[in-house]
């Protein structure tokens, strides 16, 4: 076990834990943002540099500070390490710079982007960026590419996090897409506009932090914050899929199906394309209850779930709210994760 001090908070974690995961054990506002790191994907991380932190003391044995900021998602902790994130002016400054870099070639088309509302870049920019730009040049643009019947690639929005590449490495026998080109001309592609077709290809949509890979069965159908997430499962015949998903309702209609994500937007169990794209009737599913969205996302802003399960609090609610609740009863009152 290693004892780490993160922004003044001490935590004990198993050896080999990364700084980011140690911070996630503490949780809350001190957790560094991560745009490319994705826990279930081996090899991911280190690329976006959003999670850079300052190591003020390397370890108990060698308490010198590290000369450069380090990527917290890939740097393992040492016993006695002291890490500064929100307490370091330098880190916050650099993070502003990273937001700026990620945005100079990003189209800022959030009003028409399906990802808006659950976009990691949107959240990141909102929390850490500045509201003006110093970039005057033309932005990099690409034509939209259809990769197969279900997925649309809009490379213009891509921030080259490589998550979708690692997903294919991990879930399929032979990856057919990757990063082509170099520098700011790099792009995700299938070379000769191949289709990405395998039973788990849809998961690249879930791992994409921005709106570069979108669900063609959902494109432009609904803003995410107007939909209501509900956990559900079905008896999926696919051997690698256990059919545990989140359904996104608008009224009585299932608008889309995604894998279940945790508070950091990470999928814990991959789902197959049949569950994701072809089962869009409530009758296909066994409903478990509302899904809890615990991120600084606009979905949470419009959430219908009561925040705390406490009889006293419910009793103290203003009469108007009670009337509202009586008229439009939620699927289930209270409760975490349904």
């Amino acid at each position, binding site marked *: 076990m290693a004892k780490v001090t993160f922004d003044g908070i001490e935590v004990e974690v198993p050896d080999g834990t990364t700084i980011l995961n140690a911070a996630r054990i503490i949780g809350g506002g001190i957790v560094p943002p991560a745009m490319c790191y994705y826990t279930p994907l081996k090899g991911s991380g280190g690329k976006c*540099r959003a999670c850079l932190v300052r190591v003020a003391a390397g370890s108990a044995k060698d308490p010198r500070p590290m000369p450069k900021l380090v990527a917290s998602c890939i740097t393992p902790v040492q016993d006695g390490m002291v890490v500064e994130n929100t307490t370091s002016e330098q880190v916050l400054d650099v993070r502003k710079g*990273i937001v700026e*870099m990620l945005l100079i*070639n990003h189209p800022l088309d959030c009003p028409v982007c399906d990802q808006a509302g659950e976009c990691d870049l949107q959240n990141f920019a909102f929390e850490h960026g500045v509201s003006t730009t110093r970039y005057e040049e033309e932005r990099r643009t690409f034509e939209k590419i259809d990769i197969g019947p279900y997925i649309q690639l809009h490379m213009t929005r891509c921030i080259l996090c490589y998550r979708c590449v690692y997903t294919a490495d991990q879930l399929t026998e032979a990856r057919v897409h990757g*990063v082509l080109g170099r520098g700011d001309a790099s792009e995700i592609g299938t070379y000769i506009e191949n289709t990405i077709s395998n039973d788990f290809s849809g998961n690249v949509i879930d791992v994409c932090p921005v709106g570069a890979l979108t669900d063609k069965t959902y494109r432009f159908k609904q803003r995410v914050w107007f939909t209501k997430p509900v956990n559900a499962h079905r008896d999926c015949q696919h051997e690698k899929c256990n059919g545990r998903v989140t359904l996104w309702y608008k009224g009585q209609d299932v608008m889309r199906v995604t894998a279940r994500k945790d508070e950091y937007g990470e999928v814990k169990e991959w789902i197959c394309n049949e569950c994701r794209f072809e089962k869009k009737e409530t009758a296909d599913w066994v409903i478990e209850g509302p899904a809890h969205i615990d991120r600084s996302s606009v979905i949470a802003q419009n959430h219908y779930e009561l925040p705390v399960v406490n009889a006293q609090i419910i009793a103290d609610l203003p009469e108007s709210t009670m009337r509202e609740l009586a008229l439009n009863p939620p699927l289930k009152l209270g409760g975490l994760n349904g």
Partner: protein
Amino acid sequence: MGRKLLTEHINVEGIETIEVYRQHGGYRAVEKALKTMTPDEVVDEVKKSGLRGRGGAGFPMGMKWSFLAKPEGVPRYLVCNADESEPGTFKDRYLMSKLPHLLIEGMIAGSYALGARTSYIYIRGELLYVLRILEKAIAEAYAAGFLGENILGSGYSLDLYVHPGAGAYICGEETALLESLEGKRGNPRNKPPFPAVQGLYARPTVVNNVESLAAVVPILNLGGDEYAKIGVGKSTGTKLFSACGHLNKPGIYEIELGLPVEEFIYSDEYCGGIWKGRALKAVVAGGSSVPILPKDLILKTAAGENRLMSYESLGDGGFVTGTMLGSGGFIAMDETTCIVKNTWNFSRFYHHESCGQCSPCREGTGWLEKVLHRLEHGHGSLHDIDLIVSVAKQIEGNTICPLGEAAAWPVAAAVRHFRDEFEWHVTHPQEATRPGAVYRGNLVLA
């Protein structure tokens, strides 16, 4: 005339063949190492020599070798980084094409010291003709029993391969080089783990520059202590400098470290002064990625001492008034050089060569190039000058590999020392963009 340890016989007819090379003392170092020394003794000699890596970073080579992890039953590798592609640096190409056996000899001794049974020379793809020279030399070395099974009856076996890159500057970064050698896209790896622990095929690996490995040969022939007497302070031995730009005699010079910069530029023995009788304006002393210095600061340090061609003296004053020795790509610019155009040109190179893996470098290098293009072509504004300094600062230190710094340093240094010239491009765009326009204070000559 200083001592020449690497290039003493470089102009001998037929030195690229093993017969002539051996007539001039070739493969003595390998015989000495394999017959009379243990691998650890070879490492010790290199440590004693104080040799610092010649690829740019200047890390002590003996120390790098001693860091190599040596787990039981796991192969180790020595890889030679011959992906020389820094603008201004062309010493390794010369060394390999003229003296292929010197590199091979250094690699055999190095592989023996590290316990590597397979070693690779990763050569820049554009140098195909050098690759052929090396392959021919390797075949000769196999035939003469210096490579292959049981070398010189010592029981030590080594296979040596040459592998060409596909034309990417980034593959000169050691972990990108290893990725490329493994047949993957040449993206630098996240560190740790360092190559000394997990390098090629996830095995312990040492990556050394061509000139560093070649220098092992004179170190073993002379002995580490004797080698350390050459040079000045912690800059021991001799170093190849590839001098280019506005010089009377550009070319590759082997010098003893510690030679005054002034002597190197103006002495007839070396570069012979600035061409066409012009005055020196600025020097990039170690390849395009190191900070540029104006004439006053390259000849004398800020404290007024003579600046020497050594790691310490060139680095004197940090990045405020100093620079780096880097890889020895010495670019001299005369008084007619436009610093803004030159900086834009360097930026264009780094923009083109960024691998695009991490965001500050991928986006920042392109941004720098675009703003510098604007400034050079007379469309810039005064706050563009602060903008490029700020963008360079956002890249520097925040990237996966040193390419980010290599892109940021020249820009920051150019503005630091030649800000008035940048401002002149903004305030006098018509004059500045006229063909042949030269900035000399406020005076414009066409």
